[in-house]
């Protein structure tokens, strides 16, 4: 029972994969019989739409400001899809990786998910960095100083402030 389900997934993916490969000019003539089916036609249309959208930015709709962030979070929350490993040529692998990168580049980048050892409340886990006079985290001092210069309503003055702009 499980094996049949698996093989069904397998053939589905292979059809889409081979349509994509065929469009990329990697000839595999044996897809034509599959294209005659309704599913084959849908796959064919979908992959041509994807190709058009990738080539022409006019076809790409611009979603609302929060859409990408929500999508990225939803993807993060998604369970990983476990599919059986199939043999494929290294060239094909590389190409699909590039295609994915290109697709993302035309949309938006968001923050890389930050995994806090399974904790869902990073605010409580904030690392407490050393206090004002400590020499570590020299990078941080510049940021604090820049913040203080531009927006410090309180009296925070970095005691150990180096002449940052001079370096």
């Amino acid at each position, binding site marked *: 029972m499980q094996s049949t389900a698996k093989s069904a997934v397998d053939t589905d993916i292979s059809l889409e994969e081979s349509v994509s490969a065929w469009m990329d000019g990697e000839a595999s003539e044996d897809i034509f019989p599959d294209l005659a089916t309704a599913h084959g036609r849908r796959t064919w249309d979908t992959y041509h739409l994807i190709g058009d959208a990738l080539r022409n930015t006019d076809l790409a709709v611009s979603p609302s400001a929060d859409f990408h962030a929500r999508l990225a979070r939803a993807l993060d929350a998604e369970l990983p899809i476990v599919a059986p490993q199939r043999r494929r040529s290294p060239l094909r692998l590389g190409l699909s990786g590039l295609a994915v990168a290109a697709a993302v580049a035309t949309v938006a980048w968001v923050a890389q998910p930050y995994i806090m050892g399974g904790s869902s409340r990073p605010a409580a886990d904030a690392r407490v960095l*050393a206090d004002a006079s400590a020499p570590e985290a020299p990078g941080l001092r510049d940021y604090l100083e820049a*913040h203080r210069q531009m927006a410090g309503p309180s009296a925070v003055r970095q005691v*150990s402030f180096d002449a940052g702009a001079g370096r």
Partner: protein
Amino acid sequence: MIAQLQQFCWPVLGRGGLIRRPAQGAGWALTAVFLVALSAMHEAARAAGPAQAEASIQLLYDIQQAARKQDYAGVFLYQQGEVIQSSRLVHVIDGTGERERLEILDGQPREYLRHNDEIQCLIPERKTVLMEPRRGDRFPGLLLGNPTDLAQHYEIRTQDNLHRVADRQCRLITIAPRDGLRYGYRLCADVDTNLLLKAQTIDASQGVVEQVSFTSIRMGGKVDPAELSSRWSTRDWKVLQPRIEPADLAAQGWRIPAPKGFVAVMQVKRSMGHSNVNQLVLSDGLAAISVFIEPYDTQRGHPLSAGAARRGAINIYGTRIADFWLTALGEVPAATLEQLATSTEYVPVSSQ
């Protein structure tokens, strides 16, 4: 007084509801009367609200003006966690405008000499004068962008009974946030001059995040303008002028959603030792957030690690977005920064 009454009433109501059985009609009738009375008091409080809020906002505005327009000199103490730092401040108005001298009294000597919007930071051990642009008001001023919007995000109350700070009578103002995105504040302003004598930043659990308070202060005619002159002679010192240029992060493809109530007050590009860094400053009138964006060095990474960190009263959140590193920091709760950082998007501007 109403608040006290409410505090008194609620526990009584709660207990009554739990213990008494529904059969005891008299108890329920009493409870209903209580509830009606309570809601009436609520209405009364709401009606009195706007006028009170307006007066409180006017007081905040007066505090800001007092810090700018009066002569004062004194020593104030800044305390955060285990760190205490005291500073001597002299502020004098003369024919040319505002003059201010601030000396750091602990640790390495520093002096900040201000003439209107121009600040010189004196670094004696390097014989260096660092020129700084001036942004916003510092203690005893308030940041205050547009005071009228403050009431949307804070509940501002003035207390009638007087307190005493640095041997002066002062009026307590509590500024409570209406959401979890920002801290609250407790201010004490001089009764005669409205000058801010003490300010505390309060977190959600009513703990003091940081505080600053005058320990001694003189005002008006008791301030000698001679106190403004520095004890250092900076004639042969090196003068550094940091390169700070205006920037437009939105035009570069950055979509940085400001937390509710915060607006962008400034965007600049500045050199920070290792590289050019873009800085966006967001403020809600009292609190400020800086968002720094710089190219990410894929070989060496970034000196700050990803995620939330905290240094003193300042929370920090760092993350990588595409080939950039974003650092958000400010005197706001860590969750505010995390939300900002994780919902920021970078959409590369197409080279058309």
